[in-house]
């Protein structure tokens, strides 16, 4: 029997949510169960939409898999960030201004935390080394490379900024990249640190 695209999309979602939380073996079993249910119910004359709606969201199904917690899992607040992770994130982003050593301490805290995967740790270290530090260096160049010329005619004055370095938009792009990347890295790490990692 061929699977309708809607059903396939639903099962794919379920597989990825389940694999992330339960591991691939249990995810396969769960997808097989739900897939069989979908197929049988549709063969019974029910519409795919109806069957999927009654099955519920992949997140709810996967949540039901975990041992009963004190509150329903979908409303349970994410684990709080601990002090180590918060300090690590602050130092990674801005620690460079504390005699450079601040950032190094941030890296040590990052690598000794059990909340991040190796991939996260590599992201945290290399995007960018020094956090917002490189911005200060480049920002310094940008200001030294431009000069303001004020010309006045009567009571109206106009200010013209002349850039002596590369065209202005290049600088803007560089600055944007230097700001956006470490900020995104920090957001990403803050999010992943909220979930205690399972071995």
């Amino acid at each position, binding site marked *: 029997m061929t699977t309708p695209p809607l059903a396939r999309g639903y099962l794919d979602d379920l597989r990825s949510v389940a694999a992330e939380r339960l591991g691939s073996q249990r995810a396969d079993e769960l997808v097989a169960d739900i897939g*069989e*249910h979908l197929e*049988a*119910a549709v063969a019974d004359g029910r519409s795919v939409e109806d069957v999927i709606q*009654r099955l*519920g*969201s992949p997140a709810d*199904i996967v949540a039901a898999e975990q041992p009963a917690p004190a509150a329903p899992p979908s*409303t349970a607040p994410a684990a709080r960030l601990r002090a180590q992770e918060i300090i690590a994130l602050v130092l990674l982003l801005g620690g460079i201004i504390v005699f450079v050593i601040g950032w190094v301490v941030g890296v040590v805290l990052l690598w000794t935390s059990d909340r991040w995967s190796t991939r996260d740790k590599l992201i945290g270290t290399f995007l960018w080394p020094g956090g917002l530090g490189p911005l200060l260096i480049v920002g310094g160049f940008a200001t030294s490379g431009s000069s303001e010329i004020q010309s006045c005619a009567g009571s109206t004055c106009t200010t013209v900024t002349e850039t002596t370095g590369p065209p202005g938009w290049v600088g803007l792009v560089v600055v944007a990249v230097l700001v956006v990347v470490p900020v995104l890295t920090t957001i990403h790490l803050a999010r992943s640190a909220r979930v205690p990692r399972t071995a």
Partner: protein
Amino acid sequence: MEPGALSQLRRGALEYCVLALLQDEPRYAVDLVTELGRHPSLVTSEGTIYPLLSRLRKEGLVLTEQRESEQGPPRRYYQLTRDGRRALDRFETDWRAFRDAVDETLRKDTP
């Protein structure tokens, strides 16, 4: 989201409802789930019953068996084990006492 108390009660009672549906004969998983899904106050998402079934199997309260089907692939049937039946009997007794106590208390509060 539903109130926490109701969802807790539901979670606790649902597994025994699964066992109760199996007390006479083994049943096809899809039929079992569809039947439970007919009670919205018991089951909000039919899909959540599958994780429950898998837990009951790990706890040894139900067994599964594959049966050939005329149309399509083999079907998974669930049946009650002796431990499952014992757990169900105990729950039935406890539940009746619990339900009567709650009903009686609620009635007192209503003028």
